[in-house]
């Protein structure tokens, strides 16, 4: 007799289960169970993954959840109101009807449930109405309480009971709770209460057997109740994990949940390992005395008709004026935009665009997607009205309609982009439109607009499930095993690994490095737990920009819950889950560079007095391309990384499309697919342009026969293997979907068959398959690359022509990009920008521009610039002062505007928000040097202006300021507190260069003075260490030594264990390549030293210079805490 498990938790019960839904499904399939129900705690978090996995395994996935409730009122529990009267009606077999809709007995409505134990009510979904009710029930209880709390009340259950089937639960269920509290009578009242709420036909008395003594009495009582109340018994196993061995992880998670160690958790842990999925045979043996309890599982399963592919989701309709339909309204908006976009285009382009737009509009109408386009158009319009930079990307950039509507900025017709990538008739899913917005407040404004427009229950953010990874796993499992804080710190720093991992990076090796002896049984268990907990969900976060919008009530489609950010609501699924279930999402992504571009434009307006329009930047600007060709790209969007820099001089971009290629080519997909070098060789004319098959020439001609973009691969599949548009889209999903290896293999078989039919040679097939499978790692669609290339070009243009404004904007939006602020500042200084240090007499919170006579700011040689450009310097803002709160910084600026500070004492008194540590840091970095004092400048040849020092005055030194700060921040007592103490001279000596460097890096993380290496140049010269700038003159193959500050370490997953190091000195950046052998010999040095000398052979490939490291030595340059951007 078969059995179906109808009460199981997954790891998505967050620390209350230890198996992923996929593991439960595969075990269920192995046990030949035809169906299974997942009931996670207070949510449907794991349901999409459960549903998808079950679909694949051809298992029916039943939906349900365990709901935390305080159902019983004290009156009902005690029966004080008289058990005969209130429940006289509930004994009716159909109490809902007989109650006449008046609802629950008044005694239960008083909501006086304080002090009653909470329990879990298992609910199964029978119909779509039931699903909608369950979602709304969860949403109601979640939104009522703080994040992570909340429980359902009687009224909620009553309101949302239709379509749901209720079980009486296991140890933490309502039956057990009632038995504990009031014995069999209370249990009877409890079950009657459930029958009243859900209908007597929808309540099953649950029995579980885990070999516990306590269960015997409960099961006996349950059987008695089932008989007396004419309810069916249902056998379940209250599953918490798939296999018995998963119990250990479940115990560890329990300890973490209760903030205990395993040793002190005591009886909070499980008594045995019986809560695993059991076979029908085992369950039958277990319930040999109640075979009907097992067979009822089958009967109940057949009643559960609902599956997750029947969500009933609808995207909202866009309100249009009377007499218009959404299609007609969209058509009008599109043609309006067409005239702006293509008005000045060539006749040919116009014709092609017109044809494409008609085609797209027809398809949009056919698929009834006009509402979606209009909603996105509405968002972009809102951005435009609010002066917020917004640019669509993703597959939307393939659409001429999107381009005409202003949603995207790339002309898909001009660039011949593939429309099928965006929208296909065959696939039943929504198109993908992502909007890039400036990160921060402006993005928040757009998000709040969506909330306002579609209502609290109409829109929500998608979730981001935080899962255990190495570091968190090592830390929390260590805590569970009782390791002390010091040991935990040591272990978590040891398990931080590079992106690339080899056998030396296995977890056991890393733990051994941390000094753990894994032969000890406890530590061996620790290792096993760390491995087992990988990818297990820890808690729910919020996705940075994904929003889902719904026609009507979103909370009937997916449960909503509060996010930790006030005012935000988040759905219980992540964006992949939403996409799987056909819920459309709009990604409102915050892009730091967009904010930086916007800020640059404002600074240009204010200080250069020019108006720059990003939509109309001069195309093919020679200065921009000259910078790109020489890899002078620090700070530029997407083309600043080490790998980008080493390919730029080889690709030699000359036009916009080259940037599109550049953005797309340095990605794991093209790199692993071995597409980079052939493309470069062909571009340089060193290799002949060939095609895998002549039929592919039209697709690959633009990229010289090498596929670089996703669209090309899809087209190849369509041409070479006769894939339909829909099949090609399926291929794209498989490429972009991380849990899809098996899916990819199925498609590969289909591809091979198609190619063989078309007579494509086996070698060419291999090449094509390699290209396609590599893209599964991550590759760019052309439309996406084009959107990014636009931003890259804009950032390059602004950096080349308005360095001061661009650098200030970049610094004001950190952290972003590849380099630290210290490197950005040094790069700007090498380009001639004057960077001024933080100064409380003139710095604002943000970095600003100052007009300083006599300073020469660089101006691109090939352009003419107004004279105003030439004397602009960058002033570091107070935001760079470590530890200083923005509130204090803003008060300081406000007070300064009111009246200048006459002394440090005056500053400390007028800005009480500044703590002692803030003032000390300010003094130490020299930010107080120009604060004047009535007494101070006397005798120091200082120009006084009404007692206030001007910029021309002789400045005090940092230790003078430190000396004053120490006195200014000591409490003077109530009598003297209001008196302003003039600054007096200090007996302290000036800081040395080294001390200044240490103070600069400690206080701001960067220095505006000379590069640390510059102070030691003579010594480095004596050691034979070359400057970065000199390497250009040295022929390749020579042995050289380089040295400097490590600014980036990268060990990419695609580089077979090679480590790439960037060493910065006062002249620029030198790059070193470290082979895996050298890396392992010098692992500690390479990973931790701040300054390194590297000796090796110089390689110069098309002006890309790097040193192949053979020897590595630490260098002592300074004690300053310089930082490196390490990619772990």
């Amino acid at each position: 007799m078969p059995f179906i498990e109808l009460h199981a938790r997954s790891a998505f019960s967050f620390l209350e289960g230890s198996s992923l839904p996929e593991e439960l499904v595969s075990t269920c399939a192995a046990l030949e169970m035809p169906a299974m129900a997942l009931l996670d705690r207070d949510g449907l978090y794991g349901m999409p993954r459960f549903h998808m996995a079950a679909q694949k395994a051809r298992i029916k996935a039943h939906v349900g959840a365990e709901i935390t409730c305080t159902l019983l009122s004290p009156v009902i529990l005690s029966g004080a109101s008289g058990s005969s009267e209130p429940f006289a009606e509930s004994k009716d077999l159909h109490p809902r009807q007989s109650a006449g809709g008046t609802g629950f007995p008044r005694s239960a409505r008083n909501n006086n449930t304080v002090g009653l134990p909470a329990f879990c009510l298992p609910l199964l979904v029978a119909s779509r109405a039931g699903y909608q009710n369950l979602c709304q029930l969860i949403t109601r209880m979640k939104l009522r309480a703080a994040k992570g709390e909340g429980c359902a009340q009687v009224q909620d259950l009553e309101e949302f009971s239709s379509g749901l089937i209720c079980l009486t639960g296991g140890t933490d269920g309502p039956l057990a709770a009632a038995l504990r509290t009031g014995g069999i009578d209370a249990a009877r009242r409890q079950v009657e209460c459930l029958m009243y709420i859900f209908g007597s036909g929808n309540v099953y008395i649950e029995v579980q057997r885990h070999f516990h003594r306590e269960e015997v009495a409960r099961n006996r009582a349950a059987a008695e109740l089932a008989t007396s109340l004419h309810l069916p018994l249902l056998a379940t196993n209250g599953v918490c994990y798939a296999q018995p061995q998963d119990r250990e992880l479940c115990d560890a998670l329990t300890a973490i949940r209760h903030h205990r160690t395993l040793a002190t958790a005591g009886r909070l842990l499980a008594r045995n390992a019986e809560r695993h999925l059991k076979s029908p045979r085992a369950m039958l043996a277990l319930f040999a005395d109640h075979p009907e309890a097992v067979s009822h599982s089958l009967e109940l399963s057949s009643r559960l008709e609902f599956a997750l592919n029947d969500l009933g989701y609808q995207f909202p309709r866009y309100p249009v004026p009377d007499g218009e339909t959404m299609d007609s309204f969209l058509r009008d908006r599109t043609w309006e935009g067409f005239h702006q976009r293509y008005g000045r285009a060539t006749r040919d382009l116009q014709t092609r665009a017109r044809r494409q737009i008609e085609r797209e509009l027809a398809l949009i109408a056919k698929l009834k997607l006009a509402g979606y386009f209009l909603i996105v158009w509405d968002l972009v319009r809102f951005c435009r009205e609010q002066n917020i930079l917004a640019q669509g990307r993703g597959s939307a950039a393939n659409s001429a309609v999107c381009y005409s509507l202003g949603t995207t900025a790339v002309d898909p017709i001009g660039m011949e982009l593939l429309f099928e990538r965006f929208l296909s008739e065959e696939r039943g899913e929504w198109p993908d439109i992502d909007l890039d917005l400036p990160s921060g407040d402006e993005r928040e404004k757009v998000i709040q607009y969506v909330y306002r427009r579609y209502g609290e229950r109409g829109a929500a953010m998608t979730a981001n499930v935080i899962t255990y990874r190495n570091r968190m796993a090592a830390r929390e499992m260590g805590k569970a095993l009782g390791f002390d804080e010091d040991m935990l710190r040591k272990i978590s720093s040891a398990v931080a690994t590079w992106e690339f991992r080899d056998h030396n990076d296995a977890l056991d090796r890393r733990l051994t490095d941390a000094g753990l002896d894994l032969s000890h049984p406890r530590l061996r268990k620790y290792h096993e737990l760390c491995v087992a907990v990988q990818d297990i969900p820890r808690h729910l976060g919020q996705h940075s920009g994904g929003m889902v919008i719904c026609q009507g009530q979103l909370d009937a489609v997916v449960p909503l819950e509060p996010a930790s950010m006030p005012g935000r609501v988040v759905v219980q699924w992540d964006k992949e889950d939403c996409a799987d279930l056909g819920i459309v999402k709009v990604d409102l992504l915050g892009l730091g560079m967009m904010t930086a571009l916007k800020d640059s434009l404002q600074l240009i307006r204010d200080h250069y007095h020019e108006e720059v329009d990003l939509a109309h930047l001069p195309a093919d600007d020679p200065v921009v391309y000259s910078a790109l060709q020489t890899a002078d790209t620090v700070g530029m969007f997407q083309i600043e990384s080490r790998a980008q820099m080493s390919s730029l001089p080889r690709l030699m971009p000359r036009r916009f499309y080259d940037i599109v290629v550049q953005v797309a080519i340095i990605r794991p997909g093209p790199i692993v697919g071995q597409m980079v070098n052939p493309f470069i060789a062909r571009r340089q004319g060193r290799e002949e342009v060939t095609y895998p098959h002549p039929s592919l020439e039209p697709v690959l001609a633009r990229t010289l026969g090498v596929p670089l973009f996703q669209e090309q691969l899809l087209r190849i599949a369509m041409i070479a293997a006769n894939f339909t548009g829909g099949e090609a889209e399926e291929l794209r999903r498989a490429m972009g979907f991380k849990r899809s290896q098996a899916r990819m293999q199925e498609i590969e078989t289909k591809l091979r068959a198609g190619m063989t039919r078309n007579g494509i040679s086996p070698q060419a097939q291999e090449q094509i398959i390699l290209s396609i499978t590599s893209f599964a790692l991550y590759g760019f669609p052309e439309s996406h690359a084009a959107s990014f290339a636009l931003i890259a070009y804009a950032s390059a243009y602004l950096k080349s022509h308005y360095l001061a404004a661009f650098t200030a904007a970049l610094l004001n939006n950190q952290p972003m990009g590849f380099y630290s602020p210290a490197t950005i500042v040094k790069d700007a200084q090498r380009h001639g920008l004057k960077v001024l240090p933080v100064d409380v007499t003139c710095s604002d919170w943000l970095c600003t521009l100052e007009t300083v006579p006599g300073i020469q700011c660089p101006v691109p040689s090939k352009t003419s610039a107004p004279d105003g450009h030439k004397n602009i310097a960058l002033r570091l803002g107070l935001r760079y002062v470590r530890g200083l709160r923005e509130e204090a910084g803003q008060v300081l600026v406000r007070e300064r505007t009111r009246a200048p500070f006459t002394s440090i004492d005056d500053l400390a008194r007028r800005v009480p928000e500044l703590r002692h540590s803030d003032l000390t840091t300010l003094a130490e970095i020299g930010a107080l040097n120009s604060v004047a004092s009535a007494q101070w400048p006397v005798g120091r040849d200082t120009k006084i202006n009404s007692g206030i020092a001007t910029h021309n005055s002789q400045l005090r030194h940092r230790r003078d300021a430190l000396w004053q700060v120490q006195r200014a921040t000591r409490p003077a007592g109530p009598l003297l507190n209001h008196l302003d103490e003039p600054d007096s001279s200090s007996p302290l000596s000036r800081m040395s260069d080294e001390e200044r460097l240490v103070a600069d890096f400690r206080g701001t993380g960067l220095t505006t003075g000379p590069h640390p290496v510059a102070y030691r140049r003579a010594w480095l010269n004596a050691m034979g260490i070359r400057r970065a700038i000199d390497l250009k003159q040295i022929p390749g193959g020579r042995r050289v030594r380089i040295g400097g500050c490590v600014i980036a370490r990268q060990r990419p997953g695609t580089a077979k264990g090679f480590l790439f190091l960037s060493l910065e000195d006062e002249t620029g950046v030198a790059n070193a390549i470290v082979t895996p052998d050298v890396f392992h010999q010098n692992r500690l040095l390479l990973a931790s030293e701040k300054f390194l000398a590297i000796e090796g052979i110089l390689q110069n490939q098309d002006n890309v210079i790097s040193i192949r490291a053979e020897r590595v030595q630490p260098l002592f340059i300074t004690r300053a805490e310089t930082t490196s951007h390490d990619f772990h």
Partner: protein
Amino acid sequence: MLFGCIYVPNFSVAAVLRSEPELRPRPLALIHGKPPLEKIFAVNSLAESSGIGPGMTRAQAEICSSLVLRPRSALRETAAHAALLDAAQSFSPLIEDAAPDTILLDLTGSESLFGPPPVLAAGIAGRLSQFSLEGRVALASNLDAALLAARGFPGVTVIPAGQEAERLGPLPVEVLFAPATGDATTKDSATNSLLDTLDRWGVRSLRSLAALPEISLSERLGQRGLSLRRLARGLSQRTLAPFEPPVHFEEAVELEHPIVLLEPLSFLLNRLLEQLCERLSARALAAQELRLALELENFPASNQQPAIKNQPYFRRAVRLPLPMLDTRLFLKLLQLDLNAHPPGAPIVKVFLAADPAPPRPAQGSLFQPPAPEPEKLELTLARIRGLVGEQQTGSPHLLDTHRDGTFQMQPFEVSEPTPARKTSAQPSPDSASDIATPFPLTALRRFRPPLVAVITLENGQPARMHCDSLPAAGGEQACLVLWKAGPWRSSGDWWEHDAWARDEWDIALRNETRIAIYRLVHDLLNGGWFVEGTYD
């Protein structure tokens, strides 16, 4: 005025090397903490040069194959400290016990005995060597200058009067803040903040600190700043806080003829106890602990207890639950203890010491229920301990675990009655007692230790049982299991050495008169069957 300071750097390592001098030429590290997570606490210079440092784990340190690991030993440190005090006291009766690793001496006037200061300092250093300690010695005309010099300069230092500021000038400011515990890692946050301020000012030596203007410094660092400045200038006027040896309550008697029997020993003990109690009473003190040391004739080497000055002693200690002063009670307790632990050899000397403590208040609370006199209770307990052993007495405390019947014996404590506390641990869902049950409760009478049984299984369930220790289940034919319930399965401590997993069965067997129900346990890890108890 002449003052001296003895300072032993890396004291805990020095204490170990003192007792094991053969380790001096080898890299040595002291470990601290509970296995398997012990960490290095201190190392000698050889270990340091091999890359071993404090904070490393044992496994990391063991990479250095020649490294010798020793646990940090409080006993050795106490002994080394006592030796340090002895060394100092041999040069001056006026000494100050500044820290475990630091002793200050008032040497005024001792030049005539031991020679001029350089000779005197060398003499002290020589004495330390005799005591197997490597220390630094400094002499100066004021106490703090001597202290700073000993902490700052290696070997022997003599600072002539008037040259303190000049000589101390090069020392780093950190010497001013050496913690009193001798543990270099423990500095309070105020000290750290002060050191940080001085570092930011660029004031890193005593000379630069001494040069700061007095009033300005006091405006910035207050009195502490001024005091540090005075120290840096060698101007401290601190007086020595003489070290008073602890008050010892010890009595001893040497016998002309060795005693063999306990009775005459009791007579002697009574006398000694009377003397001790008299002394304690004179100081209004009571005894918290009695320590008895018996010097034995032909003391058997195998039985040797840790002894002072290598004398063969038999030692016993009686810890009292609260301070008491009752000669008869003490004598009885000692007699009971000696009955349970006889010395095993003739006694030639008797030492008796009492650890003093303030006596307990005599009057109890008005509403406190009458309890047995603590003295009588203690006596009774001592009798029981003598009969059943020390580990078997006390009050049992159930442990919070699923492991059946696990408890721990805790010593009885005399305490004020406290309101019942809530239990902190809530039972797991698995273990919750489900039913406020009307069912009758049964009691399990446990067999300790459980009885080994041989079980015949049918369909994986016990069908027959053979157990020699049970009359009903023994005999030639194994007893038929009439009725059974189970299994009840439990397992736990899977992360420890002693993981366990077991199945429990309740079985009914017929004995001569009636049907008895037993609890049968199957050890799932080791495979044995046991009868754990019977139900009443």
